[in-house]
C-alpha cells in the first residue's frame, strides 16, 4: 500500500499541487490523467524525490518514507525521454546500478539482466548502444533498467508518448504483467485507451486555480 497524504507543491509561489491525497494498493495500477500543465509530472517528481515537496507525507505499507533520501529508495521511474546513458550499451545500462549500488557480482547482475531482457523481448540487443535502438526498444530497456533495481513502486511519465498504438499495447502488457510481481505502479498518461487498458484506478488532476 502506497499513500500520499496532503501533498503540496508550488513553484515560485505558484501553487501546482494543493492538498493531494493518493492511495494505491499493492499490485495496483493507478493512472494519473489530466490536462497539460495540471501538475502530473510535478506529482511524479515529488513522489520520486526529484522534486522536494513543500509539505506532505509518503507512506509505504503504513511506514513513512522519504523519497528524497535515495540511500534506501524503493521507487523506480521510467522517464518520458527514457534517460538511457548513451555511452553505455544496453546491458551496461542495465547492470550498472545493480553492480555499483546493490553490490551484485557481475555474473549475478548479468544473469538477472538477461532474464529481464528476454522477457521484454530485447534478446540480441544487449551490446547495442541506445542510439541504435528504436523508441519502443529504448522504452523497454528503460523499464528493464528500473526493474533490475527491484523497486516496490514504479512510476511512468507518459510511457506511450513516443510509441505507436501497437507498441503502446505491448508496453501495456508489460505493465500489466508486472502486477504479478507485487509491484505498485503509477502511470501518468494522456492516452485514454492506454489508461483504460492498464489502470485499476484513475486519478484526475486539474490545474490548481488560486481563489479570489
Amino acid at each position: 500500500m502506497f499513500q500520499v497524504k496532503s501533498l503540496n507543491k508550488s513553484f515560485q509561489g505558484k501553487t501546482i499541487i494543493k492538498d493531494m491525497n493518493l492511495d494505491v494498493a499493492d499490485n495496483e495500477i493507478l493512472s494519473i490523467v489530466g490536462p497539460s500543465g495540471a501538475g502530473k509530472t510535478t506529482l511524479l517528481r515529488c513522489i520520486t524525490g526529484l522534486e522536494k515537496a513543500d509539505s506532505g507525507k509518503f507512506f509505504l505499507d503504513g511506514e513513512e518514507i522519504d523519497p528524497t533520501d535515495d540511500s534506501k529508495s524503493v521507487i523506480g521511474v521510467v522517464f518520458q525521454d527514457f534517460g538511457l546513458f548513451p555511452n553505455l550499451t544496453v546491458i551496461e545500462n542495465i547492470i550498472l546500478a545493480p553492480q555499483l549500488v546493490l553490490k551484485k557480482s557481475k555474473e549475478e547482475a548479468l544473469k538477472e539482466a538477461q532474464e529481464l531482457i528476454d522477457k521484454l523481448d530485447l534478446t540480441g540487443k544487449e551490446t547495442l548502444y541506445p542510439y541504435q535502438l528504436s523508441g519502443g526498444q529504448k522504452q523497454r530497456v528503460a523499464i528493464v533498467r528500473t526493474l533490475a533495481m527491484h523497486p516496490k513502486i514504479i512510476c511512468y511519465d507518459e510511457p506511450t508518448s513516443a510509441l505507436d498504438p501497437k507498441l503502446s499495447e505491448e508496453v501495456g502488457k508489460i505493465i500489466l504483467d508486472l502486477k504479478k510481481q507485487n509491484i505498485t505502479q503509477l502511470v501518468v498518461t494522456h492516452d485514454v485507451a492506454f489508461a483504460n487498458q492498464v489502470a485499476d484506478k484513475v486519478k484526475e488532476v486539474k490545474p490548481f486555480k488560486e481563489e479570489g
Partner: protein
Amino acid sequence: MQYILEILPSLFSGVVTTLEIFALTIVLSIPLGILVSLALTGKNIIKAIFEFYVWIMRGTPLLLQLIFIFYGLPIIGIVFPRFEAAVIAFVLNYAAYFAEIFRGGFQSIPKNQFESAKMLRLTRWQTLRKIVIPQVFKIVLPSIGNEVINLVKDSSLVYVIGIGDLLQAGNIATARDVTLVPLILVAVFYLILTAVLTLVLRKIEQRFDYWR
C-alpha cells in the same frame, strides 16, 4: 647538409625541453582543469574564487604570467627555478582554458542523465565517473585538441625566461652562424610535432565514435 647535421643535436635537445614542458603541462593541467570546472559549477564563494582565477588567466597574456612568476615573484621572496616556473605558469594558464571547456561540456549534459543516475541511486562520484565524464570527454575532445596544438606553439614562450627550448636553440644558431637554416628547421620541427599530434587526436576522436 653538413651544417644541418651539425646543429641538429642542439635542436634536438631543444625539442626534448619543449616536449617536457608540453607533456608536463598536459598531464597536470587537464585533471586540474576538470577539478576547476567542477568548482565553477559549484556554488557561491568557491565558484566566485575560481571564476576570478579563470578571468585572470584568460584575460592576461601568458607571456606576462610567465614573466610574473619567474621575474616578478622573487621580488616578494617567492623563487622558482626556471623550468618549474615555466611549468607552473603553463599549468595554471592552460588549466583555466581547460576548465572553461570542461564547464561547457558539463553544462551540455542533459539533466535527465543526472536524474536517471539519481533514481538508480548512483552516488555523485559514480555518476561522474561512469556517465558524466565519459560523455563530457567526447564532447570536449575537439576543443581540447585545439588547445593541445596551441600549447605546442605556446611552449616557445619559455624562451623569454631563458629556457633552452627548440626556439631558443634555433635562434642561437641563427644569430651565431648568420643563416636562416636553423629557423627553418625549427619551423619544420614544430610542423612535425603539430602534425603528429593532430593525427593522434584524430585517432582518439575516432576511438570515441562508437556511441552517439
